[in-house]
């Protein structure tokens, strides 16, 4: 498939840009942060997003969705990356809806997917247990009990955990990866405690403790890990699309500053030391763009290369966003390290996104393993 977006996808991207520019610029994130907003996002904006169909793009029509595909959803992520918009789109739509659609039975899909599509359900994934991404190292236990299961354990870095209606909890019924399964947990259920954490990107994250919490198995036992892996690859690509938007915005703001700021009587952008570093960033961003569009298409095509592509993309995008956000600050000089200037927000968001679902190191290692070394 040609590595370009089609007209419909372009229209979606343009309308997303428009809405976000007006309703959710970087200053909106600053406001959420400074007012210590209890929700950490703007529910009204979330409703508007739902009305525009963003929450339904990857959901099949049979479950109230638009079945528009991930390439389109990726365009929205890219635009949200530019404005650093805080919303549950990643947790609920990229991770929640994807995994429910992949793993859930018909009844579970019927009860959850239409609500996600309407924007009335926020879903969070409770996966990590240690400080570094490691989906195989799960010690949260799930023990069969009556109709359902009982879960105990502690989860960290649960994105949007404290605002979620439902949690998808990764827990263990037996040893090995096959013993890892997915469970639906109601956020109001007894034995569950959710503690909000303040992260450097001012976005939502929580620590979740489960003490004999009753839960419902998502889909079939023994099939959870495969669905989790596939969902994570899809979500890694979605997150990479967001990061691509973030790095492009930081880069463009920096180029604009190089043309605006004068020192020694000339524009600082005329200094070759800065020009070459800018040209290097341009080059790396070009590579990221190609990986992101190729990977988004691979999701919609259900390509057998999905895993390798997700791995390459999250690695490359993670490496590049670190370079770009650091250089962006450096090239702004003193003003770059002030809280008043927005450029620092991009670096802060980047660092959290880099850690999410595996960083550069994780994916470089994984890519080598996938290639047999």
């Amino acid at each position, binding site marked *: 498939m*040609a590595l370009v977006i089609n007209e419909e996808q372009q229209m979606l991207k343009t309308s997303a840009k428009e809405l976000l520019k007006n309703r959710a610029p970087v200053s909106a994130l600053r406001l959420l942060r400074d007012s210590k907003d209890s929700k950490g996002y703007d529910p009204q904006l979330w409703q508007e997003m739902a009305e525009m169909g963003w929450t339904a793009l990857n959901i099949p029509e049979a479950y109230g969705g638009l079945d528009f595909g991930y390439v389109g959803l990726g365009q929205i992520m890219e635009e949200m990356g530019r404005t650093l918009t805080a919303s549950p789109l990643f947790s609920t739509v990229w991770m929640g809806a994807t995994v429910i659609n992949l793993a859930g039975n018909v009844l579970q899909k019927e009860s959850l997917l239409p609500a996600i599509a309407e924007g009335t359900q926020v879903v969070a994934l409770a996966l990590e247990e240690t400080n570094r991404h490691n989906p195989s190292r799960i010690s949260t236990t799930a023990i069969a009990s009556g109709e359902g299961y009982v879960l105990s354990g502690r989860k960290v870095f649960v994105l949007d955990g404290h605002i979620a209606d439902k949690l998808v909890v990764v827990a263990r019924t037996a040893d090995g990866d096959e013993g890892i399964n997915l469970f639906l947990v109601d956020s109001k259920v007894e034995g569950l405690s959710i503690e909000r954490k303040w992260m450097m990107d001012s976005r939502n994250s929580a620590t979740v403790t489960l003490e004999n919490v009753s839960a419902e198995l998502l889909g079939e036992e023994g099939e959870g890990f495969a669905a989790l892996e596939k969902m994570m690859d899809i979500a890694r690509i979605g997150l990479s699309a967001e990061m691509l938007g973030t790095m492009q915005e930081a880069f463009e703001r920096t180029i604009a500053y190089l043309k605006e700021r004068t020192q020694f009587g000339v524009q600082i952008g*005329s200094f070759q030391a800065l*020009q*070459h570093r800018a040209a290097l960033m*341009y080059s790396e961003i070009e590579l990221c763009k190609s990986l992101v569009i190729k990977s988004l298409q691979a999701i919609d095509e259900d390509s057998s290369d999905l895993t390798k592509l997700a791995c*390459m993309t999250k690695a490359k995008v993670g490496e590049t966003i670190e370079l770009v956000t650091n250089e962006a600050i450096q090239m702004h000089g003193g003003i770059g390290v002030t809280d008043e200037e927005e450029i620092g927000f991009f670096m802060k968001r980047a660092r959290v996104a880099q850690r999410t679902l595996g960083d550069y190191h994780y994916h470089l290692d994984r890519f080598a393993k996938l290639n047999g*070394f």
Partner: protein
Amino acid sequence: MSTTTQTDIKTFRAETRAWLEENCPQSMRSPYRSAEDIFWGGSKPEFSSEDQKLWFERMRDKGWTAPAWPKKYGGGGLNKAEYKVFKEEMARINARPPLFSFGLMMLGPALLYFGSEEQKMKYIPEICRGEIWWCQGYSEPGSGSDLASLQTRAEDMGDHFLINGQKIWTSYADQADKIFCLVRTNPKAPKHTGISFVLIDMNQEGVTTRPIKLISGKSPFCETFFDNAKTPKENLVGTLNDGWTIAKYLLTHERSGIGLMPATQSLQDMAIEEIGLENGVLADPILRPQITRWMINEAALKLTTERTMDEAKAGQSPGAKSAFFKYYGTELNKEQSEMRVVIKGFEGVEWGEDYNDGKLARGMCRTKGNSIEGGTSEVMLNIISKRILGLPSR
């Protein structure tokens, strides 16, 4: 030109496939692996194997050394759709180009665009048939990156130009029959506006060459001296004093030809074979992420080429992006060569007595020139910053 229907294309594909199957020798079905694999043509052609000769002659007779150039100039006359199919079918069996030359890569495209009808009729068929070896006379001792400062003079003597000066780094000047050359025809004009593009016969008294030895041990390039050399006035290409326009056009063609080189063995296979695995991972823990990173960059660069072509088809101009491809491709090429030397350890730094003994070390040395020839990496970064990012000049 007539339009091509889907059935025409289907037939063309079937015919091309059958013809290539029948005519491409097995040994020609792999990418170039070393300099010897390339057939350059010329008035004293040298083939490294019977197969190479056979493959070249068959393709030449079909006009497929330059498949997309017009038939009347000796090309294959393929239209866009057919040319795409042709390339796909060549790639399907990994067929290597039968002829590689500066004539095909650089002068031909320039003549097709700027040349007169007489020049096209005279020179392009020779290029297609691989009969003339052309070399490129741009750089001078005092004019490298700042090419437009070149000093070689061409004086108007009525029916011919009289040429005096010196070129340097002229690849294969000692084997070439002719040279396309940038010369100063108006010393008084500002530097970009006094340059002309002329074609000169190397076989004359006023032209001498002296090979320069490269760090790889080979001597593929030369100093070229012009001492009252002559060329008829009809060998001026384009307009007098407007040679810079042609020079720039041609440089983008040259740049797109320098980049990633295909390799016989992938980096990771070479590393696994030489270094081995411990618990399933490469036994050199430092090299492992370096190779991985390189592989990702290589794949991403290839995708970027693909994306840029798709965007061009959708109407987005690539602009000065060739500078980015030249920069990134050559840097990756250097990295990969360096890693191969690392992987092979002592064997990697073996020089041997002849070029084929020390392929890795010598090959690595050769790649150092990739980021210099056709415009240096720094110059490519300058072009990206000014022409793509719009950063100001001083």
